[in-house]
């Protein structure tokens, strides 16, 4: 029994944490001149603010892969719980994976306790996960929701630190968005004012930063109610599309016909002599 257990212990890979096995290989490859693969990032502006009845979250919808826009209308506001939503900036796979995982954990917690999830629970689960991966999980998040203790808004940095604020911005457009917020935010905003301010902040990112673009998504969370306004604003419609559409010929066109007869160069031998030995 013990011999088997010792053997099993040697074969089991280490649990949890980041496996650095491939770092040596990557270094060797880059020394030989192989360029590292680019990954899909969400250049992003994500914002959140607390208004008089709850929380409003906003995000743009452009996903980039290096200099290319790979998704013109992606969703950056992720569902965590019926009363909690989370915007994600950074590597798209990382933000989606971590929000999905914590959303699953929150659902199990709700079954166990029979109660609505709290924003601090989501915050702590996310924070611990990101800290464990020491910043290699490139997810910068804006977490907002309304629970039994009122409205809450937090920012979470890739290394696992958090802030609790009445207004928050993250992503490459965070400075542009924060500039708009700082000049126009005041306490006791109404829902309409809040949504306008959020849209303005995202638009300042859209028009002034290449990593941000396309449309504006907004999510309004109040006590017992949420509104997910997907594509609330579309400030970048496609224009100059040919209204008549394009007409392509239905088959390959014949441009030129020329027949060239082949000259006989082969002598045909009469009689059966050639095949006889």
């Amino acid at each position, binding site marked *: *029994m013990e011999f088997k257990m010792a053997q099993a212990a040697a074969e089991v890979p280490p649990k949890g944490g980041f496996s650095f096995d491939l770092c040596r290989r990557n270094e060797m490859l880059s020394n030989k001149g192989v360029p590292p693969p680019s990954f899909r990032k969400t250049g992003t502006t994500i914002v959140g603010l607390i208004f008089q009845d709850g929380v409003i979250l906003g995000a743009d919808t452009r996903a980039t892969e290096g200099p290319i826009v790979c998704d013109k209308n992606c969703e950056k506001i992720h569902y965590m719980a019926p009363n909690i939503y989370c915007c994600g900036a950074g590597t798209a796979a990382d933000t989606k994976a971590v929000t*999905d*995982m914590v959303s*699953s954990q929150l*659902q*199990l917690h709700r*079954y*166990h306790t029979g109660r609505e999830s709290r924003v601090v629970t989501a915050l702590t689960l996310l924070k611990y996960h990101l800290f464990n991966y020491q910043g290699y999980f490139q997810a910068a998040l804006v977490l907002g929701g309304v629970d039994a203790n009122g409205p809450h808004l937090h920012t979470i940095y890739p290394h696992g630190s958090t802030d609790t604020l009445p207004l928050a911005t993250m992503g490459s457009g965070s400075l542009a968005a924060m500039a708009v917020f700082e000049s126009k935010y005041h306490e006791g905003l109404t829902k309409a004012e809040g949504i306008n301010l959020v849209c303005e902040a995202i638009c300042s990112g859209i028009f002034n930063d290449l990593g941000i673009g396309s449309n504006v998504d907004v999510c309004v969370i109040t006590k017992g109610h949420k509104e997910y306004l997907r594509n609330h604003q579309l400030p970048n419609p496609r224009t100059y599309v040919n209204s008549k559409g394009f007409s392509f010929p239905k088959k390959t066109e014949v441009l030129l016909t020329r027949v060239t007869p082949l000259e006989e160069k082969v002598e045909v031998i009469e009689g059966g002599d050639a095949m006889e030995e």
Partner: protein
Amino acid sequence: MGDSQYSFSLTTFSPSGKLVQIEHALTAVGSGQTSLGIKAANGVVIATEKKLPSILVDESSVQKIQTLTPNIGVVYSGMGPDFRVLVRKSWKQAEQYHRLYKEPIPVTQLVREIAAVMQEFTQSGGVRPFGVSLLVAGFDDNGPQLYQVDPSGSYFSWKASAMGKNVSNAKTFLEKRYTDDMELDDAVHTSILTLKEGFEGQISGKNIEIGIIGADKQFRVLTPAEIEDYLAEVE
């Protein structure tokens, strides 16, 4: 698993080909409080007696019918603590399925997973079988479904079934009363009448529990007030 003295399985075959521990587990189920389920044309109802050991127990803290997913509910007969363990495992299984396939777990899949857990405990060292039989009620793309899962890990799909103390009388009553085109409300009335058959004392909204799932695919446990309404209609 555990001490080497107890690492053999307690569920070993008897010379007559039976697993005696499972038989005993079924006896434990048979002495538990009556529970039943009825599959209607447009939904499923499950119900159970909620007899508390003393009038001093706060009956609002006891919940015998549990929600496994928004569209699947479960009730049991037998040992309450064993039921709790199975419910926790089912929550986790359903959530893992949802995380992997991004769709709600179908009723048959969840039943299979619960049954697999119950079977594991009849073939492992140092553990005993679960002392509960479950009635799983759900509504998914295959319509309304009712499954019974036994301590051995075997499961059956039923149109109507009962378990626990009064099982033979209850099943006879259900056989007489069941029709294929029953509506959900009729099924609730029938389940109340079936429970009433073997009920000791005065039946009320506080000593029975009823869970229903209809075409809206949302499983919910009825409040005592709603049960009182149904009881009034039945009388």
